[in-house]
Every structure is written in C-alpha cells, then in structure tokens.
C-alpha cells in the first residue's frame, strides 16, 4: 500500500468514527487470533487457555497449540470465554421495527395458504433492532412469518450484512400454524364450542389443502415419469408445498396445547415430512409421545406464563428440560424481535429449572444447527465452521456477564447499538442542568 493510500485509509477511518453514524460503525474483516481464552466448544468440551483463529470468515484453527499467522490481529482473551454465536430458533427480527406501527410490521400477510411468501424478502438488514441483538451474542436468528394456516416461508439469517442474501444462513422452512383448540389469549371470549368449530374448520382447511398437494405431487410425478411435455398449471402455493410433501423443504409446525400436539403428531404420522414442532408450550404434557415420534422441537419463550390457571407456576421454565429428559431434541427460541437479546436468559431459566447448563447451552447452539441441517457450519467451535463467535467475561447465561467481542461470518462486529450509543451520550449529559 503506498503512502497516499495509507493516509486516505486513516482519514476515512477517523471520519467514520468522528461523524455521526446514521447506523453503526462498519464491521471489520480479517484474520483474528483470539488467545488465552476458555473455549466452550459445545461439541468437544471446554478448553482452557486456548486460542481460536478466524480467517476468511471461518474458524481456521482451535485449541491450545494454534499458531498465529503473520498479520493476524491478536485479541488477548485472558479471563474471557469464547462461545459459538447463539442461534434463536424463532423470532420476528427484521420483520418488525416499531411494534404498534402497522407500517413497520411485515410478518403477517393476507391469506390462509400462502407458503410462498418469503420472510427473507422482508427482513430489513438495517433494522435498529439487529445491532441491539447481536452485541448480546445472538448471531443467528430464524425470522418467522405468522398468521393464517400456511403463513409463509421462514428464513435463517446471520445478523450482519446489508442485503438479505448477505445475511442468509442457508435454512428455510415453511410455516404451518397447526389448527388450535386453545384460546388465543386471555381475552378470547369464544365459547368452547366456538373454539372447537373454528379449529375443526381450520383442520378441514388443512386436510383439503393437503389433499391438493398430494394430487399435485401425483400429477407432477406422473409427468416426470412419463417425461411428458405437459406442464403443471401455475399454483404458487403448490410449488412451495410440493417439496414439503416430498420431505425436501422442512415444515415448521407451530403447535402448543397438549391436545393439539397429539393431533399434530397424528397428522404427521406416516407422512415422512421433515418436520419441526415449534412453540410446544405444553410439550411437558406430551413429552413421551414427542420423543417416540422423534420430532424435534423449537420451544419458547421460556419466560412466559403457564398456559392454564391450574398449571404449576414453573411449567414454562421447566418445559424444555422435561422434554429433553424424555428424549426430545429441544432447541429454544424467544419468539421476540426487539428483545431477542434475551435468548441466553430464556435458556438460562431452562437450565435452572431442570435442563442443566450444558443442555440449555446446546439448545441455543448446536441443537438448532442440527435441526436446521447446518451442524457442519454453525452451532459449535470447530475448525472449518463459520466464524460466528462470542467472547464474554463469564458464563454466557449469567445476567451480569458482558459480551466483549462478537464475530459474524468472520466479521468483527462493532460493539455498539442504539442502546450503547444513548448510554454514551447521556450517562453524563452535556450540558447538564445548566445551559
């Protein structure tokens, strides 16, 4: 690099610090050596006084004998712990900005059967909520559309990038709101009969829709088998549901009450779908059945109220642990948007109420990675995996723990967000009381 160019870089750099940033400082790509750290690898135990090398977006090396290449930026992590980036298995992050403002809500489209609408399209890479989330160590989030029967297609994204494609993490799933016999909220005043009726109607709708998918599949197969020139008519929803039926596209089946879980298990039986149950707030009532059916579960929020007045007060805390104990593969989600950053606390409560620290940590790292089929890319500290890295000064679940560094796809993330910036500006306001 010649001299002038060097000066230009320096000027650019200082400007970007000095100017008022509309958003955030830029991420930084390069080779980073995180040294002297405790490594929570998830899949290979804990390594003390170890190092981790990040290069070209990947974890290049990990362990106690990592050689740091020339030019690598060394970050001394003495006394710090390194975790893989946390993965939230269900959010609205990027799909909503200001909760009460419909103009900023993009998670619920009109229509009952619209699996073809894509969350990835509507994720706002510049949402103010995203930096707030990632500086707490959540690096990856499944953004999920809702409403209707087939709500749309959810997308897994890493929380850094300027276009949806840059953020896309390689997993999509079609969302099915399984017909519910529960009340929608405490102020749902429908009678039991009405709820049943609505649920039956929805179930019929599901069956009718599915029958069409089956037919579409038969026709499509027949055309293909005969190498016929006939073409299928344009049915956008069928085009998306067909690979679901064939077990190619995962189905994220949202279901919560015990009765509905049973109904959903009955529905998926013998269909050979690649199905994941989400929500599953009463999974503790159906843990055995879920385990037997070998259906993986993404549950949460853990920090929520019991679904029934007569339920023990800690059921939502204990739910994930009870299911895990029974042999269900359980990941944890927040279902949030602005406070997806509380994912470690949701897992922490699950840990405290029966799941245990180790399993709860897996439930926000390697388990969701496995559920998404990305166990070779994310969810643990292993050589060759995407460098989604969180460095903390303590137990990642503990509330007071500070996140010191975050890397996403190997990019060093500036540790700032609207919240930190307002803190910096206002802790000691200037001017203070006097003008």
């Amino acid at each position, binding site marked *: 690099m010649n001299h002038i160019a060097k000066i230009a870089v320096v000027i650019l750099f200082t400007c970007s610090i000095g100017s008022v940033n509309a958003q955030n400082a830029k991420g930084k790509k390069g080779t980073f050596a995180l040294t002297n750290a405790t490594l929570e690898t998830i899949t290979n135990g804990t390594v003390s006084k170890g190092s981790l090398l990040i290069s070209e977006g990947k974890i290049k090396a990990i362990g106690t004998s990592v050689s740091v290449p020339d030019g690598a930026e060394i970050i001394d992590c003495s006394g710090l712990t390194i975790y893989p980036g946390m993965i939230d298995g269900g959010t609205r992050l990027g799909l909503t900005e200001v909760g009460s403002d419909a103009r900023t809500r993009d998670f619920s489209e009109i229509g009952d059967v619209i699996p073809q609408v894509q969350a990835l399209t509507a994720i706002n890479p510049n949402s103010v909520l995203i930096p707030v989330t990632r500086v707490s160590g959540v690096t990856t989030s499944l953004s999920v559309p809702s409403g209707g029967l087939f709500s749309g297609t959810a997308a897994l994204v890493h929380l850094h990038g300027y276009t949806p494609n840059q953020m896309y993490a390689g997993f999509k799933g079609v969302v099915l709101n399984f017909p519910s016999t529960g009340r929608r909220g405490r102020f749902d*005043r*429908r*009678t039991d009969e*009405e709820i049943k009726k609505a649920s039956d109607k929805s179930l019929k709708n599901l069956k009718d829709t599915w029958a069409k998918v089956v037919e579409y599949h038969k026709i499509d197969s027949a055309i293909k088998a005969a190498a016929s020139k006939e073409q299928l008519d344009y049915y956008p929803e069928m085009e998306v549901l067909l690979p679901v039926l064939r077990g190619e596209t995962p189905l994220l089946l949202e279901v919560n009450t015990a009765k509905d879980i049973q109904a959903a298990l009955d529905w998926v039986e013998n269909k050979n779908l690649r199905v994941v149950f989400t929500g599953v707030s009463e999974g503790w009532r159906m843990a055995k059945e879920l385990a037997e059916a070998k259906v993986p579960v993404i549950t949460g929020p853990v920090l929520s109220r019991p679904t029934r007045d007569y339920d023990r007060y800690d059921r939502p805390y204990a739910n994930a642990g009870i299911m895990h104990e029974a042999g269900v593969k359980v990941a944890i989600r927040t279902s949030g948007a602005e406070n997806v950053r509380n994912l470690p606390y949701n897992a922490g409560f699950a840990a405290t109420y029966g799941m245990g620290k180790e399993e709860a940590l897996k439930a926000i790292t390697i388990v969701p990675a496995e559920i998404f089929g990305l166990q070779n890319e994310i969810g643990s500290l292993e050589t060759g995996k995407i460098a989604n890295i969180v460095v903390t000064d303590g137990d990642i679940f503990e509330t007071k723990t500070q996140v010191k560094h975050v890397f996403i796809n190997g990019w060093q993330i500036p540790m700032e967000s609207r919240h930190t910036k307002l803190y910096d500006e206002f802790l000691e306001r200037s001017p203070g009381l006097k003008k």
Partner: protein
Amino acid sequence: MEELISIHYRKFRTVLFLLFLFPLSSWAQDVDLAPVTGTYAIHNVIIKKAPGVTVESGTVVIKDGVISAVGKNIIIPADAHIIQADSMYLYAGFISGLSHTGIPTPKEDKKEKVKDPGNPPPDRAGIQPQRKVNTMLDPRDKSISNLRKIGFTSAHVVPHGGMLPGQGALILLTGNSPDQMIYKNEFSLFSQLKGAQRMYPSTVIGVMAKYRDLYGKAVQSKGYQLRYNSNPQGMIRPEKLAVEEAFYSVIDKKIPVTFVAEKVLDIQRVLTLQSELGFSLMLAEIKQGWDLTTKLKNADAKVFLSLDLPEVKEEKEDSSALNTSKKKTAVDLEKEALEKRKKEAIQQSYGQPAIFKNNSISFGFSTMEAKTSAIQSTLRKFLDYGMTEDDLLAALTTHPARLLGVSNVMGTIDPGKIANLFISDRSYFQEGAHVKYVFVDGTLYSYDQKKEKKTETEEKVKVGGNWSYSSETPDGTVTGKIKVKESEGGYEGTISNSFSGQTKDLSDISVEGNQWMFSFKLNIEGNEVTIEFNVAIEEDMFEGTMSAGEFGSFEVEGQKDPEDK
C-alpha cells in the same frame, strides 16, 4: 296451559282449542268474564300453614281475595266455589326476592353516538333511579304466568338497565293493569355494578366511583332542600334533580338499596359501598356467597340467593376404571384432581343455602337469572345438600315475606292474609309434583297437566311470525326483529339488528322439538361473519345463544310479537 276457572270450560273448549293455535298472548285478552263468586273453599287438603306447621285434611276459605278461615271443621260458606283437594298439598304462595318478572326487555333502538363519552346524558349511562316499574309492567308478559305456574304469587320486580335502572316494586302475579298488579311501588332502589357501554362509567371502578359521587351529591342536595323547605326566604331556589331525589328515601332509610351481586367479589364490593355510604342493603342473585356469611351478617344485609345454578352432570359410577391395575399417568392424575375440584365447586353452589341456614341467616330466593322451568328441580336438589323441605318452604315464603316487610299479609296461610296460595298434587318438593291451582290475590288459576304434556310432546314448535330479540354483547344491547314465514315445508325469513340497521336473510332455518336454529351473515368491519342462533322456545318466548365466530357468543332472548288483527 292455564285458564280462569270462572269460564264455563266446556263451552269454550273449542274456542280455546282454536286459540291455542295462535300466540297465547292474544288469547289472554279474550278472557274477560268475571268470576261468578269471590268466595272459594279448598276442602280436604293438607295445609302447609307455615314451615313446620301442617294441618292434615283441613279447609281454607277465601273471601274476596283474603284468607278468611283456616283449619279443620270449617264451615264452608254457601257462596263458595269448592275445590276438592283430597290428599293434595296447599302452600302459601312463593315470593321471589328479585326478578324482572312482568317487565319485558326494552327494545333498544339504534341510538346516536354520545358526543362526549366522559359525560353522557344520565339515561344513556344507565343512571335512571327515578324510573318506576308501573310504566314498564306488562300484565300479559309471559314471565308472569310462567312464574305463577310453579307456585309463585308475588315478586319483587325491578326495571332492566344499567347501574341504576330505577325503583323496584312488590307485585302480585295477577291483574290486568300495572296498577292492579303493584302491591307496593317505590319499594327499593335497584342498583347494579354494571357499566355503561362505551361511556362513563364503563367499568366496575367507574360505577363505584359514580355511585359515591351521586350519593354524596344527593346527601348534600337533600340537606339544602330541607333547609330551604323550612325557610326559603333569601335562599337560592334548589334545582330540581330527579336523579338525586331518587336517593332521598334511601338516605332516610325508608327504602333499601337492592343490589344484584352474584360473585364473591361483587358481593364484597357492594358491601364496601354500603359500609361507606350507610344505606340499608338488600342483596339478590347471590351465587357465590358461601364464604361471606359473617360479612353479610355484620352488614345486616337482606339476602336472596340465586336459583340459577350450574348443571350437575350425573356421573357414571365406573368402578372398573377405579380398580384397574393400569398405572395412572401424570396426565390422568392431573385430570382426576381437576375433576375433583370441579365437583367440589358444584357442591359448593348447591350447598350454599344450607351454609346460610347453618350460619342462621334467613334468606329468600331470587329468580332473575334462573330458567323458570328449572326452578322446581333445582329446589329439589337442595334437599341433597343439607336443606329440608321446611327450610326451603321458609326461604320461599316466610323469610322473603319478612325480608320484604310484608309478613302481615303474605308468607303463611293464616286468616287475614292475602289469598296467595297454591295447591300441589303431591308434596311440592317431591319428584313429579305438579301445581294444580294457584290463587293470587283471590284470583284462581288452574292447570291441566294432560294438556301441558301434549304441548311438550308436540313434535315441532311453530316459529312462523314476528319475533323481537335482544342480546347483551360487549358492545351493548343489540335488538331487532326476526320475521319468519312458512314456505314449502320449511321456513324463510329475515333478521334486523340495532347495531348496523341492516336486515339480513336467514338461512339454515331448522326446528327440532323446541330447538330453533338458523344463521345469517353480517358484515362486521369489512369481514363477513356468520351469526348462528340456537334458541329454545317456550310458549312464545325463546332463550339461547347467538354465536358470532371469533367475536364470541352471547345469550339471546326474545318473544313473539302479538299479531295485529
């Protein structure tokens, strides 16, 4: 079916038969022949003179509406119409502590939106304490004959409405005009913890605050009025304030405040108001008061328990399931525990009268919410939960008479009391007992069971005609007309509603026994919603539910409009 005995029955049988095909309300008008005598003798009857006092095979003589003689060896006057009541039972007429008997649900017209919901006109906010029932009573209203038919002869009745619907009256369940029916007007100030729709006061906290405010204002204006009356010279003439004046006799404790309060918390809220404001209190429709006996006693409240109780499902004793060696899962155990608590809750509801009795509270019953046709069996059920027949009789006669301050004229079968009586073919609280004759204020009504059976077994009720309905929804009372006519083996019709003013066609009209179902589509905020009616018809009234999908389901009641001819 009931008719006045004074009619020469046979002659009119054909006429009656024809009339029966038509709505009954039009029939009652036709019967205007006066009885040929005002003297009656009920002979050889088991007289339940008062709770615990029975006269076997005695005679009761009624003269011009008053009981003139009771006992054995009574000489029957020559002008008496004799009712031979061998081995039948004679009771004092029952008294209902509170209801809307005789007062039809008002038809609510679509009203203009209140401009300032924080300060609505009092009547829109349900504040109409100056109203009296004599302008509302309809002697032909079916609720009167329905209640009379099961032995009730008098009732404390109050207007429909919001927090202060008006003043109650004690009425006799007979007469052709409100004035004839009313025994005592301005009998109580009726109050409810019921908010107005979309205007102040809309919640229980608003209602209680408003109540305190009104009461305080009334105390103040009454004081000034008193000063003014004693020497008006030099004083500003007080404003005429109908709402506040309605409180004056309450403040003087000349009349009680009658509150409807079903649930444990509402009852205590009313007691809070009472202890702050100091009025005498009558509490009715109590459904959940078993833990409050001490509080109620301390408040010296007059108490009427509800006869509207939860349904008891007769359980099948499944001993095989109990003894099964199969290990119960956590879910089974949970379900068992829940069922047990639910059962206990039902037991508490039915045990309530006995608890009140054991805590020596004399209480009556109120019939506002109860389905009239279920009252007799509900009363019978209390016998399984610690009440005796005499306890029940007291709660239906002597206690309410005393609580309502009319013991001198009602409540027992004694000479000098108003001839409010009824005859049951067997002990009233026994399975299968039927009321055969009812005297109200000396007027005799008789019932022919066979004919009634016939109507019950009639395959399908006819729904053709014009009906008025009303339903309480969270958005207010909705009313409207249902017009139905027969067409090719079925029905067709329309329905209107006071919310939108839209009139819609009915579809899927079906009638099974006395169950009437139909649906229609309504446009609510741009969504097409199917509303389903499912009601049970009893004579020319109906009760049931109106379901509006996710908007919920609401109770609906209605009655057939008299046919104009």
